[in-house]
């Protein structure tokens, strides 16, 4: 697959490295102070964004780095979200146990669906993940006694030492912490022996074997890790929305993450972040735009927002795959190169 694997940071000079550290620290300070100077609605948005970044990282690890296409990512988020809800309702688990549990259960369910088809090449995994999407959603809807069907479950806010994270600012900090952790963790994995094995499998699985990479094992690891990310994102989403229902985890959400990975740039950590940002902002921009157009032409656009979204997601997938398969991350890099060598 054409993609842009980031060179390890070690290639940069030490002054470049410290500059990068400085930038990152500055970014972190801005993120920490964010609720102080932006409207509440933005904080809400930033929370959603963090969740989407985590989920996109997960799909990017599977699809972008390892070449394992999943059409059922949303369903694995669902597993995480229901895990949090059920763990809270039945076991009274606090968030710091429930969220990891959400990740683990999504990973287990993911591996359950993926295992049979990961052993072989070809489109079997695509079918298996599509099966996961439909079957899990079916379970969310029809396993009434546990999931409460279409109505879903209510989730109490997470609480830290008895202090409830019951508004967007408080839950934002939880999401921020988890997002930063998951991003750094992912970057470390990608720049390690494991990450190199992922890319080797994506590019040439036979050669990877010659080098000692146990393909099935590493595909499983990638798939479990990606599903784990989805589960964590789903768990956070449960605390964020404070309810869980099947409608949240439909095929459209899987397409959403697919678009995020493709638009951002497959096989790039930066790309996953850019893609998630872009795709989180997009529906809002679409809604504002459509409603504005609607009022001027006197048409109630609200009714077509969902299909409009679906159309645009699809268009993005197709256009980026054809025109810029390395995604926004690549555009970003080119832009920076140009600004570093003006006129070059």
């Amino acid at each position, binding site marked *: 697959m054409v*993609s842009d694997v980031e060179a390890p940071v070690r290639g940069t000079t030490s002054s470049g490295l410290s500059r990068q550290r400085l930038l990152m620290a500055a970014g972190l300070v801005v993120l920490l102070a964010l609720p102080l100077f932006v409207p509440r609605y933005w904080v809400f948005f930033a929370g959603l964004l963090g969740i989407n970044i985590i989920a996109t990282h997960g799909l990017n690890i599977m699809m972008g780095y390892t070449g394992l296409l999943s059409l059922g990512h949303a369903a694995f988020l669902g597993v995480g979200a229901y895990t949090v809800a059920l763990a809270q309702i039945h076991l009274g688990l606090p968030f710091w146990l429930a969220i990891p549990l959400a990740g683990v259960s999504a990973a287990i369910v993911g591996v359950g669906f993926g295992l049979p088809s990961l052993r072989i090449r070809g489109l079997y995994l695509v079918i298996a993940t599509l099966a996961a999407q439909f079957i899990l959603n079916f379970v969310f809807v029809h396993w009434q006694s546990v999931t409460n069907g279409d109505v879903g479950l209510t989730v109490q806010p997470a609480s830290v030492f008895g202090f409830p994270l019951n508004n967007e600012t408080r839950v934002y900090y939880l999401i921020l912490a988890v997002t930063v952790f998951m991003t750094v963790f992912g970057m*470390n994995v990608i720049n390690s022996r494991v990450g*190199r*094995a992922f890319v080797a499998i994506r*590019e040439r699985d036979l050669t990877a*074997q010659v080098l000692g990479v146990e393909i099935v094992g590493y595909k499983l690891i990638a798939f479990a890790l990606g599903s784990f990310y989805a589960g964590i994102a789903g768990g956070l989403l449960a605390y964020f929305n404070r309810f869980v229902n099947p409608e949240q985890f439909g095929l459209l959400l899987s397409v959403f993450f697919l678009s995020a990975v493709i638009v951002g740039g497959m096989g790039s950590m930066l790309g996953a972040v850019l893609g998630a940002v872009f795709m989180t902002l997009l529906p809002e921009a679409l809604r504002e735009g459509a409603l504005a157009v609607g009022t001027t032409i006197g048409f109630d656009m609200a009714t077509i927002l969902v299909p409009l979204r679906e159309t645009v997601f699809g268009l993005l997938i197709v256009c980026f795959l054809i025109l810029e398969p390395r995604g926004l991350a690549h555009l970003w890099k080119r832009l920076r190169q140009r600004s570093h060598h003006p006129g070059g």
Partner: protein
Amino acid sequence: MLTVEDVQLSFGGVKALSGVSVEAAKGRITAVIGPNGAGKTSLFNVISGFYKPQSGRVVLDGEDITRLKPHARAYRGMSRTFQNIALFSGMTVLDNVKLGAHTRLTGGVLSSGLRLPSSRREEAELDAEIRRDVLGMLELDRVQNSHVEDLPYGLQKRVELARALVMRPKILLLDEPVAGMNREEKREMGRFVTDVRDRLNTTVLLIEHDMGMVMGISDHIVVLSFGKPIASGTPERIRQDPDVIKAYLGGAEDAADDKAA
């Protein structure tokens, strides 16, 4: 060191190998030569575990590895390069070479994700070692951060050799390492391969059409023709063997020249 015993391999009706036995002696360069389609690459694929022979055995250091998966053979010290370059084109030279060390490292998801000291240390040590030994020895230092797809063909072949060496293999299989190279590059590659034998004491099994190189660096030669072994011995013996001369006069000489050109 490595023995291939009486291997039979056929694809449907095509007999790619019939009754082939080869022995690669420790610390020696053993060449496998023969006309196009003789079954040399198939033999390598049997040795590295991609093709399952219908009968016969592959024995490495006294252990029967005929049924082992390719990656398990890597863990037992077998490394190879491919006839068509098989580098990971999106990656840098350094990352490609580091992949070669997969079997020597132990980092898993948790230890590398959390950057535990153990995994940080082994990565740093590997970096240092690659810079110090491998890139220097193969004269790749200057291109280590380039993407391999940007490199000329000859250098790519060398990167592949570097990747195979980082594994610190006991036995190294090279499938046509100088195909498509110019004279200068061929000479250098020949020097690298003898260096590998002499400095690292690595056993080498070599497929090559370039007779100059084969005769120049091999300790022992095995000749295949139509999947059958027709001769084996020292370069001097092979040069004079009437069967070999006949097999090569059957049109294969031109083919070999084509390849080399």
